[in-house]
């Protein structure tokens, strides 16, 4: 009897991913599906999608999903979690603009409330869907379509470190930053996401996982150069690791 040693996670359907070559959202979709499968919770999981390329995840994952307006995912997730409580595992996926710009208020207030949800933050240092504009996470000097001469802190401020920011909030029990640019980083990211979901299952406040992702067309790099940029430049600005991991809200 042959044993299946590799395959597609059950939660991923047969639709073709629409993301660009070299985008990491496909990998991250797999990450989420594998983790839910391992924990055996896919059947009770409800996702909330943002406005941004990761919105398409609900086309590829066989899970209940709600689409939120731009930035409102934590608020929508709150509404869902306050109905189902422990009977549902609720997570959000959001990009840079969705979470750090228009959604900053909702994100911080979910943390203020210590909302028992899992927030997944996809950081690719630009607004991908709308064509590569500045994001709060863009690096100083980074050329974007609205900072054609590079991000100038005098005019456009400094990159925001969401995982660190979330870690300062009392209602947050887990905050981590990962990447999926290497197999080793993928494994660490799996572990972090599993921990995050477990915190929710234990009912202990808000868990937050930031995942660095590539956006080759808007970075004007090939997919392989984009991987290198993450390894050499992005990780220097956004160090990987667990920023906070506590058993319960203190």
């Amino acid at each position: 009897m042959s044993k299946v040693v590799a395959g597609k996670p059950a939660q991923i359907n047969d639709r073709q991913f629409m993301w660009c070559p070299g985008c990491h959202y496909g990998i991250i979709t797999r990450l989420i599906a594998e983790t839910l499968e391992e924990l055996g919770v896919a059947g009770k999981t409800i996702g909330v999608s943002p406005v941004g390329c990761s919105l398409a995840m609900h086309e590829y994952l066989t899970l209940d999903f709600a689409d939120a307006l731009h930035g409102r995912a934590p608020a929508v997730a709150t509404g869902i979690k306050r109905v189902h409580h422990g009977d549902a595992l609720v997570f959000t996926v959001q990009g840079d603009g969705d979470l750090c710009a228009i959604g900053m208020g909702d994100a911080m207030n979910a943390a203020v409330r210590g909302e028992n949800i899992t927030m997944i933050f996809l950081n690719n240092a630009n607004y991908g869907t709308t064509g590569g504009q500045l994001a709060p996470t863009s690096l100083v000097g980074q050329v974007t379509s609205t900072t054609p001469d590079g991000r100038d802190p005098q005019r456009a401020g400094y990159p925001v470190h969401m995982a660190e920011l979330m870690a300062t909030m009392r209602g947050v029990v887990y905050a981590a930053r990962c990447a999926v640019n290497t197999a080793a980083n993928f494994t660490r990211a799996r572990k972090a996401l599993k921990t995050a979901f477990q915190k929710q299952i234990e009912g202990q406040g808000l868990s937050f996982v930031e995942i660095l992702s590539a956006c080759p067309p808007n970075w004007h790099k090939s997919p392989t150069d984009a991987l290198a940029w993450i390894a050499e430049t992005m990780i220097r600005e956004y160090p990987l690791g667990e920023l906070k991991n506590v058993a319960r809200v203190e």
Partner: protein
Amino acid sequence: MEGCRLVSTKLSQQGAAAEATRVLITGNEAIGWGAIYAGCIHYFGYPITPQNELTEFFARELPKIGGEFIQAESEFAAISMVYGAAACGVRAMTTTSSPGFSLMGEGLSAIAAAEMPCLVVDVQRGGPGLGTTQTAQTDYLQATKGGGHGGYHNIVLAPASAQEMFDFTQLAFYLADKYRHHVLMLTDGILGQMMESVELKALDFGPLPAKDWALRGIARKGGRNSVISSLKVAGMAPELYGDYLLRINEKYQAMEENEVRCETYRTEDADLVLVAYGSSARIAMEAVDEARAEGRRVGVFRPLTLWPFPKRQVRALADQVSQFLVVEDSLGQMVEDVRAAVAERAPVHLLGILARDDKGGGGMILPGRVLQEVRELT
């Protein structure tokens, strides 16, 4: 056509003899140049398709001329920034698309109540909700009936070419300052993304009152202070609610009297008149040329101001023609205003969004489809 002025003629009569440059640019960029030629160097916006060329244009050009560009964190931040800048007496603007325009609803209501002159551009996309990222004309009612709460009006300009987008932007700032009121320019994804040749020329519409209400610190105003506010609670506001309503009512009446603009195309001997604005008007005019070649007596009536709506002109046409066909990329919004103006003098048909060539988000009402409808009606 009595009372119906060709805007382009009016503009060229008033036009300054400034040197013109001819460029090939997108409609969105034409608005950008119009703003700069109008002396607007304060722009606050948020990325949203299909108007990102506008945000990017200002990001690129304003720093070169000492202007202020901010990519705000959201549309409601952006409209509040516009309010702040306008309160200081400068020309300020924002641009957005339908979902963003909804977010600006509260902000625009406040701007209306505080009577802050500024320009807001809505490059329409399919709605409701997040809808599509491509063209539509589904914000007509929202735009012409205010958009936010409280019963205010937007002056709504509806250009149909890159040249008009350039010219009307300058006109918008003039009207805003003339009436101390905001102006909305309603375009769509087709107009915004298409490229056309434009003559860049500064337009002069005449003298304007000084903005002595602007905020600049009492030291610069001889000790006199101004309060810019949308609040009308007695004791907490500079003006009684009733006085505000009286004054605003007169203002709106003046706008309806003086600022209607429209254009007719081949309507002189027409039996069927198509009514359309923006990109639909261009598609309608193409169909009309083909219908005329087939011997059909058809023309197009094109409102250039959607508010104030050219009611008198439509009513006059209703006495001349036997039927109307409204062509708009929605389930039927402008058709309500046309029917109200026609007041049952003639049938008013609708060719709307259900007549698109494709059910996907990128579908459009094509000239061939309009021609087909014209053939059936004539």
